[in-house]
C-alpha cells in the first residue's frame, strides 16, 4: 500500500499532497521556544496600491503539543516595511498548525491562522485570516505555496523563513 502511494505521489505531486493531507496529520517538534533566521515576506495592500513590498522577517514563538504559536515577528527593511502593526502579535499569536507531512519527500503542509496587519497611513486593514504554508524538512524552510489572499485587499505574495530548530513529524 505504501509503495503504491509513493508511486502515486511521484506521478502527481499535487494529488499526493492532497492525499497525504487527508491521510496524515503532522506535528511540529520539539516543544519549547524557537526563532527563525531572517527570511523574506512579500506583501501587497492598499498602502502600496497593490504593489509588492518586500521586507525581511524574523519569527519567534513556542511549540506546544505539536502546534507552533508565533508570538513575535520583526519586520525589517526600509520604506513601507516599517509601517505595519501586526495583528494578534504577541497574543494570541499567529498559530502554525501542520496538517500533513510526508517523511519520504520531506515535504509538509500547514496553515497559519490569525495573520493580519494594519497600516495607519496610507491606510490598510489586512486580515486577520489564515494562510497556507509548506514545509521543507531538508532545508527547514517554511514558505507559502502561492500568493495567499487576506481580507482588506491584501495578500502575502510569498513568505520564506528558515527555522533551524523545528522539524515536522508524521
Amino acid at each position, binding site marked *: 500500500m505504501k509503495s503504491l502511494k509513493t508511486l502515486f505521489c511521484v506521478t502527481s505531486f499535487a494529488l499526493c499532497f492532497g492525499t497525504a493531507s487527508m491521510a496524515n496529520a503532522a506535528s511540529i517538534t520539539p516543544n519549547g521556544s524557537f526563532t527563525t533566521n531572517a527570511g523574506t515576506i512579500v506583501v501587497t495592500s492598499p498602502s502600496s496600491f497593490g*504593489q509588492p513590498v518586500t521586507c525581511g522577517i524574523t519569527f519567534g514563538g513556542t511549540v506546544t503539543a505539536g502546534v507552533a504559536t508565533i508570538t513575535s515577528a520583526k519586520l525589517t527593511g526600509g*520604506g513601507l516595511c516599517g509601517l505595519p502593526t501586526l495583528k494578534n502579535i504577541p497574543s494570541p499569536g499567529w498559530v502554525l498548525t501542520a496538517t500533513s507531512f510526508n517523511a519520504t519527500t520531506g515535504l509538509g503542509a500547514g496553515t497559519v491562522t490569525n495573520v493580519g496587519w494594519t497600516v495607519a497611513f496610507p491606510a490598510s486593514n489586512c486580515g486577520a485570516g489564515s494562510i497556507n504554508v509548506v514545509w521543507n524538512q531538508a532545508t527547514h524552510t517554511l514558505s507559502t505555496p502561492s500568493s495567499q489572499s487576506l481580507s482588506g485587499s491584501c495578500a502575502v505574495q510569498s513568505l520564506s523563513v528558515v527555522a533551524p530548530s523545528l522539524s515536522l513529524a508524521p
Partner: protein
Amino acid sequence: MNNKKQQAHAFLGLVLLGGLIVTAGPVQAGGFMTPTTNAAGWGRAFGGGSMFKNDPSSAYNNPAAMAFVDKTISQFTVNYANIDIKYKGSAYDYAGNPSSVTVADPNTGATTSTPRTGDGGQGGFEAWVPTGFMVMPINDRLAFGLSQVVPMGARTTWDQDWKGRDFAVDTRIETVGLTGSLSFKVNDEFSVGLGTILQHTKGFVSQNVDLYAAAAQSPDFGMIPFPAGQGSALMRVKVDNTSLGWFGGIAWKPTPQDTLGLNYHAKIKNKLEGKYNIYADPTSEGLMTIPVVDGKTLVELAYPGLKLYPGGANASTQLDVPANASFDWVHQFSDRLTLGASVTWTQWSSFKALTLKSDGNTIVSIPYNYKNAWQYSFGGDYKLTDDLTLRTGVSFDQTPTRNSTRDPRIPDGDRTFASLGFGYNIRAIPGLSIDGAYSRQFVETVKLKTKNVDRLGAASLDGKSEAKGEVVSLTATYAF
C-alpha cells in the same frame, strides 16, 4: 530757462517714478537675460549698442560713451512684449507610461489611470517693461548717468493640470535695476566709465511634485513601483533679493566717423530668499506631514533628511546674474547713414543648477549646465529728413540652454531679432523726440527631451517647444 528746468525736473521725476511703480516683466532674450535698451536700440536690433551719438542708454550699457553726450538727456521707454510659446509632444511617468491622472480606490488600493492630454496651453506672456535713462554732463570731462533697467527676466505659464506639470507650471523672474554711473573723457578720442547697479529680483516658480513617483525612485523606500500621477502637490516658491553689481566700459573714437566701445557687466551674486508652500490633496499632504515611523514622514523615509512643509517654510535659491561683455562699433557713412555692429558674450556657464534650499537643506536641485552664449547684432539709422530717422537691424542671439537639460521652465532656443524703427523730432517742443520700434523674434524650435530628477518623480518629456515673439517699443527723449 527756469521754466525749462522745471519741465526737465518734472520729466525726470516721471521717468524714475514710472520705472519704480510699473511692474517690470521680461522681454525675453537668451536664457533669462533681457535687452536693456531704448526704442532706438530695438529699432537697430541692438547693432552698435549705445555707441550711437547722444544715446543715453549708455548710462547702463557702456558708461564710457556718456563722455561723448554733449547735453543733458533724459529718456523714458516703455516696451510691450508678446511672447508665444507652445509645447508639442508627449510626457511620460518614470515607468515610461504616458503621463496620467491616477486615482486609487481607498479600500483596495487598486488604481485607474487616465492619460493627461493637455499640452499646457499658451506658455508665453504679455508684459509691459519700463526703462529709463538719464545722462548729465558735469563738465568737459565728467558725465553722470542714471538708469532704471530690467536686466533679467523670464516668464512661462503653463496650465496647472498639463501633462508636463511635474516640470513647470509657473515661472517668473523679474528684476528692476537702478544704476548710477560716471564717465571720464581722457581726451577727445578716448573715455572710460564705471557704474554700479542696485538690483531687486523677484522669483516665483511653481510645479507639481509627484510624491509617489518620487518615492518609487528611492532605494531607501525599496524602489516600490508606486503608480505615478496620483493626486497633486503644487509646490510654489516665492523669493526675492536686492543685490549690488558693477559695470564699466571704454569708448574710443579712432576717426571722426568711428566709435568703438567695449563694456563689461560683472556677475552679480544673487541669493533669493523667501518662502515655499505646497498645495496638496489630503493624501499627498499626509505623505509630507503624518509621522509614520520614529516620527518621520513617508517623504523623510523615502529621502532621508528631506522635510516638506505644505503650510510653508523658508526657501532660498541662488540665481546669479551672469557676467557679460560687448564690443560695439558704429560707423557714420554720411550725414544720413550710420551703421552699427555688436558682439555680446554672456558667461552663462555660471548657471549650473536651480537649487532650492530650506533652512540649509536642499529640497531639490535641477541641473541646467548652461553654456556661454554669443549674440551678434547689426543695424543702423538712415536720416530721411532733419526730423525723421528710419532704423532697421537684425540680431542673432544664441541660446545658453542645452538639449539635455532644457525644460518647459525656460524653453529657450536660438533666436533672431528683425527690427524696424523710427525717430522723430517734435519741433513744437524743442528738445523732445520720440522713437518707436517693432521687433520680431523668430525662435528656433527646440527639443524638450529631458528627464526630471528623482525627487520630482523622474518623469520625462519628449517633445518640442515652438516660440515666437514681438516687441513694440516707444521712447520719449528730452534733451535739455
